[in-house]
C-alpha cells in the first residue's frame, strides 16, 4: 500500500510541472494588456512602457517564466492589480469557502445518491427504480443557477425557513477562529453550536443546489455498476452458499461496484468546482470562483494564474486520493502499480 502511494506521488511531480507551465502560458495568451490596464486610462504610451518594464513584461517569455517559477518557489503568486492584495492571501481566504461548499454538496449528494442507486439496482423495475430515474434526470436537466434561484424563492421568499442568501454567515455572527477554514468544522472545534447552526443554515441551500445537480451521475453510475456486479458469478456463488442478502449486497456486490462509482465521484467533484462559479454568484458566496471570474474580466492575470494553479493542484490531489482509494478497494490495483 505504501509503495503504491509513494509511486503514485512520484507521478504527481511531472503533473505539477506541466500544470505550472500551462498556467503560465495560458495567462500570457489571454487577450488584453495588463500594463495598459494597470497604468489606468489616462496614462500615455511612455507610462505604459514604464509599467511594462516594472512588471517585467518586456523580457522574453523564458525569462518571465524563470521569474515566475522562482516566485512560486517562494510561494509568491504576485499581487492582484485590482485589489492590491497578494493573490496567495486571497486564495487562502476564499478557497476554504468554495471547498466547504463543494464538499458539503458532494457529501450530501453521495449520501442520497449511493443508497438510492443500490436500491434501484436491487429492486430493478420497481417504483424506487423509476423514482430514482425521474429525480436524477430532473436534477441534471436544470441549470444550477435556476435550481439555486428556485430554492431561494421557495425556502427564503415564500416559506421564510432559510436565512437571506448572503454569504457564509449571517451578519450577526462573527466567523469562528480559523483552523481549517471550514466554518462548520471550525465552529464545532470551538464548541460554538450557535455559529455552527448559523453556518449550516447558510450552507444548506447552495449545498442542496450542487447536490441536486450531481445526483444524476452518481445514482446512475451506482445503479449500473451494481446491476453488472449483481449479475456476476461470484454474487451467484455467494447466494448459493446462503449468505443473507445484506452480506451479498453490501459486502460482496457493493464493494466491487464501488470502483466505477469512485471514478465518477472524482469527475463529479470537478464538475461541481465548475458549477460553483454560478452558485457562488447566486448565493453571494465569497468563494474562489467568483474571485477568478472578476479577475478574468479585468485582465488581471496574477489571480487568474493563481486560481488555475490552485484548481489544478486540487485536481491532481483529488486524482491521487482516488487512486489510493482504488488501491484500498481493489487488491489487484496494488499489485499492478
Amino acid at each position, binding site marked *: 500500500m505504501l509503495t503504491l502511494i509513494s509511486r503514485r506521488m*512520484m507521478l504527481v511531480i511531472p503533473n505539477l510541472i506541466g500544470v505550472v507551465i500551462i498556467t503560465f502560458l495560458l495567462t500570457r495568451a489571454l487577450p488584453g494588456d495588463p500594463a495598459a490596464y494597470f497604468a489606468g486610462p489616462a496614462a500615455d504610451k511612455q507610462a505604459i512602457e514604464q509599467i511594462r518594464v516594472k512588471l517585467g513584461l518586456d523580457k522574453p517569455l523564458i525569462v518571465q517564466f524563470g521569474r515566475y517559477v522562482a516566485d512560486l518557489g517562494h510561494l509568491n503568486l504576485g499581487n492582484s492589480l485590482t485589489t492590491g492584495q497578494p493573490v496567495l492571501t486571497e486564495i487562502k481566504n476564499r478557497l476554504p469557502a468554495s471547498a466547504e461548499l463543494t464538499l458539503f454538496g458532494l457529501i450530501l449528494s453521495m449520501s442520497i445518491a449511493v443508497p438510492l442507486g443500490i436500491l434501484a439496482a436491487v429492486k430493478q423495475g420497481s417504483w424506487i427504480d423509476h423514482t430514482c430515474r425521474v429525480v436524477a434526470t430532473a436534477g441534471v436537466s436544470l441549470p444550477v443557477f435556476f435550481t439555486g434561484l428556485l430554492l431561494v424563492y421557495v425556502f427564503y421568499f415564500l416559506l421564510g425557513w432559510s436565512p437571506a442568501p448572503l454569504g457564509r454567515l449571517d451578519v450577526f455572527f462573527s466567523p469562528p477562529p480559523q483552523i481549517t477554514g471550514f466554518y462548520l468544522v471550525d465552529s464545532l472545534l470551538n464548541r460554538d453550536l450557535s455559529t455552527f447552526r448559523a453556518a449550516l443554515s447558510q450552507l444548506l441551500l447552495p449545498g442542496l443546489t450542487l447536490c441536486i445537480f450531481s445526483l444524476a451521475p452518481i445514482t446512475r453510475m451506482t445503479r449500473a455498476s451494481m446491476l453488472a456486479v449483481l449479475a456476476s*458469478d*461470484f454474487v451467484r456463488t455467494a447466494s*448459493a*452458499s446462503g*449468505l443473507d442478502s445484506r452480506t451479498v449486497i453490501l459486502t460482496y456486490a457493493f464493494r466491487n461496484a464501488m470502483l466505477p462509482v469512485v471514478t465518477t465521484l472524482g469527475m463529479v467533484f470537478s464538475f461541481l468546482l465548475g458549477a460553483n462559479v454560478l452558485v457562488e454568484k447566486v448565493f453571494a458566496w465569497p468563494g474562489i470562483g467568483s474571485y477568478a471570474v472578476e479577475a478574468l474580466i479585468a485582465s488581471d492575470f496574477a489571480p487568474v494564474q493563481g486560481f488555475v494553479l490552485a484548481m489544478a493542484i486540487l485536481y491532481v490531489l483529488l486524482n491521487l486520493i482516488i487512486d489510493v482509494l482504488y488501491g484500498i478497494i481493489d487488491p489487484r490495483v496494488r499489485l499492478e502499480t
Partner: protein
Amino acid sequence: MAKKKPTKTEELLRNSDKSLPLLDVQDLTVEFVTRRGIVRAVQHINISVAKGESLAIVGESGSGKSVTSYAVMRILDRAGRITDGTVMFSGIDLRAMPENEIRDLRGREMSMIFQSPRLALNPIRKIGRQIEDVLHQHAQVDSGLVSEKAIEMLEHVRIARPRERYHAYPFELSGGMCQRVVIALALACKPQLLIADEPTTGLDVTTQKAVMDLTVDLTRERGMSMILITHDLGLAAAYCDRIVVMEKGHVVETAQAERIFKAPSHRYTRKLMRATPRPGVTLRDLLPEEEAKSARPIGHTDRHAAKPLLVVEKLVKEYPRNDARGTLTKLFGPRPAVEPENFRAVDGISFTVDRGESVGLVGESGCGKSTTSMMVMRLIDKTAGTIMFDGEDIGEIPARKFATLPLRKRIQMVFQDPTDSLNPRFTAARAIADPILRLGNGERAFVRERCEELARQVGLPVELLDRFPHQLSGGQKARVGIARAIALKPDLIVLDEPTAALDVSVQAVVLNLLQDLKDSLGMSYLFVSHDLNVVRLLCDRVIVMQTGQIVEQGPTDQVLVAPQAAYTRDLLTAIPHPPL
C-alpha cells in the same frame, strides 16, 4: 456468534424419513420470460438422488441441465420461474419454503460449485474471509475459531500452505486452485448435497482430474450426495453412479453409468455417445449413424515428404517479466530488484509440417502452444530461431508488415471462440468476404459468388449468409470462421482449438468438415488443442509441449498409444476413462 438454536427446518430435516431420497424432483417445469415470449427451459422432468449417490446430468447447451440445478437451489434469476412440479429435499417441499428459510439450507444442506472458478469467487476479498462468511452465516463454529476452521477447510481441499493462502486473493491463484477454494466454500458447512455445475470446464485435463478426484473423495468421505452437471459423457460416466440425459428441457434417459455406455436406449443418448471423441474410433464414427454411412471414406492425401511446407527451427519467444512499469517510475522509483530478466514462453522448439499434413500441437495452458501458433501466423515477433514457410524465411518479416504481404493469403487461422472471432456488425457473407476484399486481387467482382461457393463448401445454408453472428448457432458460426479461413485457398491453416466452445455433436460435424476440406483442398493444418482425443482423430502427427519445450513428437498412433515421455503419459491418464 454462538451456535444458533435448531430451526424448524433443522428439526424437520433431523426427523425426516431416512428411506426417502435426499432430493426428489417431480414434474418440474421452469419458464423464462424473455422478449420473445415465454420459454420453457425445463419441462416436466423427474430426477431423484438417493443419500450418498452421485448422479450426473448430461446434455448439450440449451438442454436445461443448469436451469434444473438453479431451480433446485431456488437461485434462478428474476426472469425465471418454477411453474409446475415439486422439489422435495429430505421430505421438505423446497418450492413452498419462504426465502429466508431456504437461504439457511443453501450452503448448509445443499451447496453448489460452478464453472469458471476464478469468476465464482469475490475478486477483492481474501479467500479465507470468503470461507469464513459462509461459516458465520450458518453459525457453524464459534466466532473465535472461525479462521482456524477456514484454514482447516483449505487443508481439506489439499491446498498447500493453507495458512498463507488464507490471505490470498483469487487473482493470485491458478484456476485449479480457485476451484479448490470454491469446493472448500461449498463443503465448509457439511452439506448433504453438492451440485457441481460444469466444475472443470476451462481447466486443463490434469487439473480436471485432480479437481474431480478431490470432489468425489470428499463427498464419499462425508457420505454426501452429488449432482454433476456436464456436457462430457465420459466425465459423467467416470465419476458418477447414475446418469440422466437431458435434451431440450426433457429428460430422455436415466440409467446406471455402465448401462448408458454399453446399451444406450434413447436415440439422443446414442448420438451423444457416438459424437464423444474416444480412443479406437475414426472421425466418421462420430457422426450420427445415418450420416456416417453416406460420408465418403477419409481420403489419403499424398504428402510430398521431400519438401516440408513449414519448417520451424530453434524458435524462442521471450517476454519481459515486468513490463507494466511506467518509464517515469523507472526514472524516479527505487531500482527494482534484479529478477531473472525474461520469461521464456517458447524455449527453442523445432518441428516441420508437410504439405497436406495435419499436425497437432498439444499441451496444457501456459505450455507455449498458443504463442507458437501466433508466431507461425506472424501475429507476434519471435525472439530467436527461424520460421521457413515454403522456402521463405517468414520469421524475419516483422509481424506488422506481414499482414499486408501476399504471403499472408497462404496462412490463415481459425479461432477458438466462434462468436468472439466474428465482427458482430458484419453479416456472415461480409465476414467470409473480408479476406477476399483485403487480400484477394481480381476476385472482387465475384465476391458474392465466391461467398456462396464457400458457404456450400463448409455446409452453411446459403440463405444464412445475410444473417448477423447473433442470429447464427454455434456450429454455424464455426462454419463461417472456417469459410473465412479457406476463402483465399491457403496452404496452411492454424486451428486454435476450433471446437473447444462447441457441443460434442456439433464438434463431430465440424471435425469431419475440417477433414474433408483438407482432403479436397490439399491444405496443411497446425491444430492447437488440449484435447488429446480430438487430436487423435484429426492429426497425422502430434507434438507434445510442456513449459515451452517439446517433450515428444511423432506419428499420432505412436505417441498416443505408446507414449515415451512421462508427461504425455500423465496427459493420457488424466483423460476420464468411462467404465467400459
